[in-house]
């Protein structure tokens, strides 16, 4: 097998597994569009990076953190729901980015680069880098799991029981941002956002516990990566979209299974 396929499978599986782990919380907390929001506002980072001449990456990381912090601050006061907040941040970030870009007099900014990425062109360096980030994410999640779950079930009850809601929320938002920012550059925002929510939603039909749901989500994600890349190999379709589409198929199958089981 070609080496690039192996790299793609490894990188894809790693991202999918960790996305499953974080994705269940993203779904429970109704933050489905968090990834989209980050990738949209990454454009602002790109523009700022160019304007200030500090390079892409610094700008992207800065804008991602900024979005995370604003989200965290607004979540504390509950007049705006999570999804609307994400929508507002996504669109204001994107539009501000476009405005800033219009002052950067260059032709070579690629707005869509962030969206599509390319899992097939992952390098071994990327794989290492992803693996390291993901080890970090998984490690923090192991520690965060219980308080985060308690918080997700009911925030007030959790706070009374001694969970530091502010800290836990902040760390969680930071982890998702880290995952998205890392994976976005490698596999594209489309793929990472989809892997956050689609496997998690599919897993809901089979899971009886939160841990099961996370595990199933990870498995479904990894399976999607394998199916998608294999399809891409056999049918010569673009890899990223094929992965997303196979996870979507798994989701729809899970829903049909559930309906049949109920009847």
């Amino acid at each position, binding site marked *: 097998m*070609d080496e690039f396929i192996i790299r793609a499978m490894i990188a894809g599986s790693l991202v999918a597994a960790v996305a499953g782990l974080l994705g269940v919380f993203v779904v429970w907390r109704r933050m489905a569009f968090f990834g989209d929001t980050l990738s949209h506002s990454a454009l602002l980072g790109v523009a700022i990076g160019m304007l200030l001449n500090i390079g892409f990456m610094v700008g992207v990381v800065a804008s991602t953190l900024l979005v995370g912090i604003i989200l965290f601050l607004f979540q504390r006061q509950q007049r705006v729901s999570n999804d609307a907040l994400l929508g507002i941040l996504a669109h204001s970030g994107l539009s501000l980015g476009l405005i800033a870009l*219009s002052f950067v007099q260059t032709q070579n900014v*690629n*707005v869509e680069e962030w969206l*599509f990425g390319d899992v097939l062109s992952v*390098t071994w360096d990327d794989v290492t880098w992803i693996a390291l980030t993901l080890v970090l994410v998984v490690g923090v999640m192991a520690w965060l799991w219980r308080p985060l779950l308690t918080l997700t079930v009911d925030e007030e009850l959790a706070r009374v029981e001694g969970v530091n809601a502010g800290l836990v929320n902040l760390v969680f938002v930071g982890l998702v941002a880290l995952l998205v920012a890392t994976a976005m550059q490698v596999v594209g925002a489309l793929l990472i956002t989809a892997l956050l929510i689609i496997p998690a939603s599919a897993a809901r039909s089979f899971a009886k516990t939160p841990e099961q749901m996370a595990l199933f989500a990870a498995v479904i994600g990894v399976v999607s990566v394998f199916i998608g890349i294999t399809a891409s190999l056999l049918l*010569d379709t*673009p890899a990223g979209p094929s992965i997303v589409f196979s996870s979507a198929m798994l989701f729809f199958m899970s829903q049909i299974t559930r309906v049949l089981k109920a009847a």
Partner: protein
Amino acid sequence: EEKPLIVSTIRPIQAIVVAITGDNVETKQLIPDFASPHQYSLKPSEIRLLNKADLVIRIDDHLETFLEKSMRSLDLEKLVTLSTVKGLTLLSANHDHNDHEEAEHDEDAHEKESSHEDEHHHDEDHEQLKAEDTDYHLWLSPSNAVLIAANIRDRIIAIDPSNKESYESNTQQLIDSISETDKAIIETLAPIKEMPFLVMHDAWQYFTNHYGLNQLDSITLQERLKPSAKALSKARQTITDSNVRCIVTELGFKLKTLRVLTEDIDVNTTEIDPMGRQIKLSKQAYPALLDYTAKQLVECLTHTTTKK
């Protein structure tokens, strides 16, 4: 014995490569004509093509942005980045047409350069032109094309010395043909040399610069961004004030903006494809691209406007 495989990224390069190689080599164009070089995801078959290729020819990692990643795992030996060709005229994308900056690459500079460095280095005596500020539609200058052809010829000979003579004569034919076309175009363009025209997206400055045409400020510099209300207003002002006769746009590109720009103003519009995708691939494809560009311009600038 298999023929060597040469992959070029976009149509204009492919045109030059085909002219040089004839039938001695298998050639492939990587990015399909329908796709944009800025946004393309490679399919597995295309990555295999890249891996299999003996030579991969591209403009610059700032043009074929999506390629940068795949190139990293590629053998650098077989990668040709045309923007680094010695002696090439490079123009700034952020420019004023009356006093554009030029920058040339010299020997030292691109020896230091490795393909995945973000910045190109230039000697102190040249004005610094940052990579992301460079306009990479560089193939539309015939003199650049000649240098590029020579460079490609050398690289091909390096991998396939057995057909050296054939490559050399093919290249000479191409260069001759380019200079002939060049001369013809200078004559064709003579009557319209001073006539002002506007472009919707600045893909032609290499062409207009080479022939000394009177291209006014482009309306929008960025392919992806919409012009502001102020810019549109100003452009409409410019059209009437400077008596602009023609507005040039890329194929199927921002037609609605064009409509707003030209409504109730007497001005011609024309579509030109800087990639020459509708020109049939042949030994003459590159000169034909130049010729086509010139004819479209002349047509647009000399025709009496059809509008009321």
